């Protein structure tokens, strides 16, 4: 056994990286190169042994360090990130393992609170790699390995910022971290905005993975997301409502209603919530969800609907819709999902909503108070 390892270890990481790079360019040039694919698989599995060791032999920090340096020197991560769909099955998984380990790697002397060196390198010098990883969702072969690597990287807010603010086209250079301007509105064609289509239009496996990544982007780094949503409120919720909540896919629909509820009820997003529940159109959307013919969609819809009703400062538009539908709601709600008898919280919230609706005034009352009386509610949210 030991004999094999020594032979594997004796090759320098720099050699492996160089060979891999050559092979990658070869499979890019000719779509059908079985020999190159086979060799690539071998190189990648050697790299995997370097980064994670084997059950018997732990990895050597020096070797990993050398490998990380070589991949940066040769710009190998970029070549890998755009080639995953061309690799054979096992090599795709090995790439995912190697990539994730390299992203996490910290030299022994490195301060624990600082981002790992490769992360800093990516956001300052090679953000194209991150964008390429996102584009992995365009092919089903690369979607899942790219998704795993991406979610590893998105644990760092700087990476999330690149994904949110990049607006480059294919072939152009991507946005550097220092060029990010949070107050500038997005055009809506950057890589982040393509997630809506990847979730909505891909096959189930790709869609589900893209959704998981999308959710990570939206929920992991609160302050980043709050300011992004404030600046791009209209654009974001127009897409969210029209593409995700209206999706034909049961899973996309149900998961995104749930995500909407989580975003709105997150303390950090208070202003976003207030702006969202002011809109009569948003309320209409939610009330339609309550009448969906799938009960889990109704249930998730309820958890968004309750925010509209519970809001003590309902806009006139929202009050009008609720008042016009008061009788219908009061007939509807008591029987709504009435089999959830062991869900105490749900039952309590439902009866609370009934009470709120009973107590609505006859006519909408304009309750905008001076402090909130800034020109429009949205500008308040944007601030």
């Amino acid at each position, binding site marked *: 056994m030991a004999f094999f390892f020594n032979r594997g270890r004796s090759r320098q990481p720099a050699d492996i990286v160089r060979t891999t790079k050559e092979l990658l360019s070869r499979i890019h040039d000719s779509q059908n190169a079985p020999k190159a694919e086979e060799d690539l698989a071998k190189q990648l599995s050697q790299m995997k042994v370097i980064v994670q060791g084997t059950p018997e032999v732990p990895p050597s920090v020096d070797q990993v360090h050398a490998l990380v340096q070589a991949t940066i020197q040769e710009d190998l991560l970029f070549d890998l990130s755009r080639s995953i769909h061309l690799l054979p099955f096992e090599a795709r998984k090995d790439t995912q393992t190697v990539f994730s380990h390299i992203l996490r790697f910290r030299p022994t002397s490195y301060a624990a609170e600082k981002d790992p060196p490769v992360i800093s390198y990516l956001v300052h010098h090679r953000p194209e790699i991150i964008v390429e990883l996102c584009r992995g969702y365009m092919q089903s072969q690369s979607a899942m390995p790219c998704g795993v690597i991406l979610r590893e990287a998105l644990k760092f807010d700087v990476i999330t910022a690149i994904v949110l603010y990049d607006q480059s086209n294919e072939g152009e250079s991507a946005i550097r971290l220092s060029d990010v301007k949070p107050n500038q509105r997005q055009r809506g064609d950057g890589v982040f905005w393509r997630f809506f289509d990847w979730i909505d239009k891909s096959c189930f*496996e790709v869609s589900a993975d893209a959704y998981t990544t999308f959710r990570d982007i939206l929920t992991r780094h609160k302050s980043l997301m709050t300011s992004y949503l404030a600046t791009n409120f209209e654009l974001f919720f127009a897409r969210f409502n029209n593409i995700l909540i209206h999706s034909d896919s049961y899973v996309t629909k149900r998961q995104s209603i749930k995500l909407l509820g989580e975003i709105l*009820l*997150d303390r950090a997003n208070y202003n976003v919530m207030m702006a969202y529940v002011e809109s009569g159109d948003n309320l209409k959307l939610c009330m339609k969800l309550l009448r969906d013919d799938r009960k889990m969609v109704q249930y998730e819809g309820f*958890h968004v609907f309750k925010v509209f009703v519970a809001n003590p400062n309902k806009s006139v538009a929202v009050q009008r819709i609720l008042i016009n539908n008061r009788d219908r709601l009061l007939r509807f709600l008591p029987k709504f999902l009435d089999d959830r008898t*062991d869900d105490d919280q749900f039952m309590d919230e439902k009866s609370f909503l009934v009470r709120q609706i009973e107590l609505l005034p006859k006519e909408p009352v304009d309750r905008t108070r001076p*402090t909130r009386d800034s020109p429009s509610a949205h500008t308040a949210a944007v601030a």
Partner: protein
Amino acid sequence: MDDMSSHYQVMEELGSGSFGVVYKAIDKTDGEIVAIKHIDLESSEDDIQEIQQEISVLATCASPYVTQYKASFLKGHKLWIVMEYLGGGSCLDLLKPGCFNEAHVAIVCRELLLGLDYLHSEGKIHRDVKAANVLLSQTGKVKLADFGVAAQLVNIKSQRNTFVGTPFWMAPEVIQQAGYDFKADIWSLGITAIEMINGEPPHASTHPMKVLFLIPKNPAPRLEGNEYSNTFKDFIAQCLTKDPDLRPSAKELLRHKFVRNAGKPEALQELIHRKQDWDGGRGETKDVKYYAESLNTMTRPEDLDDDDWVFDTVKPPPMFKPKGTDWMTFDEEEENAPDPTQMLEDMHISAPPPPPKHQANSTVRRVPTDRSPSVRRANTKRRSSGVKQPLGLDLSYGNSPSTVRQFRRVSDKVPTDLNPAKHGFDENQSPKTVATDTSSKEAQIGRRAYSKAVGMSCQEVLSTTGDGDKREAISRLAEAWSDLEMVDPEGLYHIVRIMNEKLQADSRLSTLLPSTQPDSPSRPRLVLAQNNPHLKSHRRRQSYVPEPQPQSPPSVPAQAAPGMEHTKQLSDVLYQRWSEGLRNRWGGF
């Protein structure tokens, strides 16, 4: 999107379980026979993410010793997972005519070890190895199946803490939650070997809850008797080494004499033929169920209801839906609805199916990595039912050696026992229902208290107790609770209730006991108005978890609004958050 389901001709049902129903089907593009698992996502609370996890583990496996995943896609609210078809059935099925002989067990063990070696080298732990999850092809090939609770480790050396699996097959370190790795599968393999030679795992006649105490406490099971060879006994002893560090890996066990001398997989065809003969000899007409598209996967045209919401000043002309098409989602429950208008109203509430049956053949999955209650609370999703606490729910009902899983996947087919003549030991069968099944409110609460609190508490304390005598005492107590829950849940409720009252009533005790903080402000939960009529009953129900009422600031603008006094509580909270938002922006507010 292309309707993937049309690529398959679905035929008869192969079986059903916690996950849904499995059908045999033909892939129309190439004529290949496949197995398709239908999972009804409507009947699962919160576990779409978990199912995706299962798929991603499956989709990254390519080994002749693991059932091959082919595709998955959605059809309405059903998820179809297409797998390779294995015509030989599971080892558990093949055990029905009788136990395996040593030669057969050796072959199965070798093939399983090859499968586990593959998984483990991929950083995957199966976590639910048992005869029911070992499938055979017609030609005798052995494959690991059901990755419902499998785990993918990020790091080759990392460990898991999750309490997962099926009690009888669980390794001691999994039960003790002290961190475990690949070696847990090796223990389960040893138990599976005993299951194959004896027809059932050790402790099979014991209550699964009790088994959880016995496995860590007792010496590891051994195979005894002259009828077994020494190599076999040694193989079992190696697999069932209590210390996971001393337990050999799959690779090491592949060098064991017992499996090195094992025959070819083709020899297992004998077992398949034996089962066929047995089925034939019993004159059982196989009750074949064919796939029928259920009506509720079809979508009805929306917004035809004349009681639909009014959003515009122009009211859409009331439309009367043609009868017949409307009633299809109806459930029998609606039949006594008094008048048609009433029924129309109910329509959109989509007739509720009977509450999901309690399925003990589901697998418990819980994440107790952090057992401090506050932290767990914070992770808790907004719905109580989304966080099924596993043990009690699934295990308290009987002796079924169920796989334990935090959530239930309830199949839309009620798993009726088609085969009343079936005898023997079926680990995928519904549990026995307890004869004294009182259904009073108190009994329900009692059962819930047991499953959500008492049983869990015993297990938690046990897992943090090292001393043998103390452990013994605690497990006896846990058993006693479990017995009480089965015999007299009402009594259990009263004990818990009175205990709480007494604790609260004693001024010293009530102040000394650490108070629970069930509500963190960020938790998306509505606060009840003081005058909410349900608040009382809510408090009553949760009497032992005193709900902290948020402090109201002295003067709140929202209160001034007419008609809003009743929402004081809620508006306080919203106002607080709102003013905090202001403060953050303008500092001096």
